[in-house]
């Protein structure tokens, strides 16, 4: 049926286009939050508002001040700059993994978004259109599998670069991802036990009764574990050993330049968005919020869409905030934390959850 097809295509556009549109804003947010935390101003030159912006040209004075929004177009400028840089492939590089690594860094996190319901289903022209690309019965497993794929970009990049620093960086990435993948699985298992289903739309529905129904309240330990593991899987501080500048130059992307580098860079942000979306869906009630009913109207659907992204933005802010607060762990500390602390906690949490679920 063509109407179904059009609806699906529109949803796909929203699901994959939304994060792409969000990324420049996220880069801007990252730089501004970093600057404010460090008592600086941050980017304030390239933008519509600010010293030479439209507001000054028209009104003769800066509207919001350059402090807040002055450099809003800086990520665009950076992107254009990167686009026109020379694309270097090192002599020692293995071309196939070297070229495909940035793709692998970017695609798996986008795929994870495919099973996330972004908003309440909307009823248009008699057809009910769910706002997710797909809702498989193994949704949570799919998320886990796809999130576990994303480090392959790092690994391929490090191996294909034919240089020792990227190689060391990617070795660390493998060790880290294997360690924290286990813990992430344990945290998810606890969620599955209390929700009783693998289907993501059902997990969201189970949490839609109100803020009290969000799984973060019944599974706070699993949430914290998942949060820490997501930070580790995305190579964000304090777990960004694979690209630790002091000991590894640039880590796995040392040899990358131009658009390939920026794809790694953007891949990190897509992975952040994907991980945040997954956390919102599994722990923070997805698109549900008190007052928003799933009645198929366009208004409610749009509101739930806004709520979903607001929740995602809160988590993204947390990512950035943590990055500019906590120092990097040492590598053996990361391994210890993963295997000796977090996995035992995950197992205990799982056991306790099992007891409660059985007693229920």
């Amino acid at each position: 049926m063509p109407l179904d097809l059009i609806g699906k295509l529109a949803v796909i556009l929203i699901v994959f286009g939304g994060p792409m549109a969000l990324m420049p804003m996220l880069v801007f947010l990252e730089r501004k939050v970093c600057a404010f935390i460090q008592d600086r101003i941050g980017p304030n030159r390239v933008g519509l508002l600010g010293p030479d912006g439209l507001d000054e040209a028209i009104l003769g004075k800066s509207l919001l001040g350059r402090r807040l929004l002055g450099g809003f177009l800086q990520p665009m400028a950076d992107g254009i700059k990167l686009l026109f840089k020379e694309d270097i492939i090192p002599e020692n590089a293995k071309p196939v993994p070297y070229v495909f690594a940035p793709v692998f860094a970017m695609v798996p996190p986008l795929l994870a978004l495919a099973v996330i319901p972004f908003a309440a289903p909307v009823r248009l022209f008699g057809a009910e259109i769910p706002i997710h690309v797909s809702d498989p019965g193994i949704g949570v497993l799919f998320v886990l599998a796809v999130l576990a794929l994303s480090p392959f970009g790092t690994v391929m990049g490090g191996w294909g670069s034919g240089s020792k620093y990227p190689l060391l960086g990617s070795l660390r990435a493998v060790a880290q991802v294997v360690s924290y993948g286990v813990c992430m699985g344990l945290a998810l298992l606890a969620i599955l036990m209390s929700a009783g289903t693998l289907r993501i739309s059902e997990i969201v529905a189970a949490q839609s009764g109100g803020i009290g129904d969000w799984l973060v309240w019944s599974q706070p330990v699993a949430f914290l574990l998942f949060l820490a593991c997501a930070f580790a899987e995305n190579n964000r501080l304090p777990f960004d050993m694979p690209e630790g500048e002091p000991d590894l130059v640039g880590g796995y992307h040392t040899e990358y330049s131009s658009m390939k580098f920026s794809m790694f860079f953007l891949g990190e942000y897509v992975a952040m968005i994907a991980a945040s979306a997954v956390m919102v869906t599994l722990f923070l009630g997805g698109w549900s919020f008190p007052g928003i009913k799933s009645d198929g109207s366009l208004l409610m659907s749009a509101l739930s869409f806004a709520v979903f992204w607001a929740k995602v933005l809160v988590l993204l802010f947390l990512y950035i905030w943590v990055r500019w607060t906590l120092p990097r762990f040492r590598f053996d500390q990361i391994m210890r934390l993963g295997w000796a602390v977090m996995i035992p906690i995950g197992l205990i949490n799982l056991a306790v959850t099992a007891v409660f679920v059985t007693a229920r």
Partner: protein
Amino acid sequence: MGSGKYSMPSDGETRDSRWIAVSPVALLVESAKALAHTFRRLVRRGSFTVQYPEESLSPKKGYRGEHFLKRDSKGRVKCVACFMCAAACPAKCITIEAGKAPPEWTDREKYPVRFEIDLLRCIYCGMCEEACPVDAIALSGTFPIVAESRKEKVYDRDKLLVLGDNFGDKISVVP
């Protein structure tokens, strides 16, 4: 799940045992404290950044910037071409050519025909200002470091005099 408290390693302990020996709860608490601290910085207004082309720092008293030559009450160059500054200069950046003073200048025998300071050689130590017996040369508070050629950074007598006219009494105090 961790030993619960941090302990310094003794000699016998291996490197392994002195990893972050804090409990996960303490780790979370300390992280939360750090996050609270950075959040306070985040919402605080104001920063230490100076938006350079539009704003600039005003130099503190005693700052030694570029030189200028002073005039006396009759508008003549104060310098008597005694070469004290050139002799005191550790960087040897002052070039003076003395000429015989006109007969109507009864207070001196010589005046500088040529007086050049090579600011690329200058180390801005202020010795010339201290050495001058007639208080004719001084260092101002400005620091124009940009020039498009080396020649521009060699200031001659007339330029130094004009700079002096512009600065008026804004004379740096060399301790």
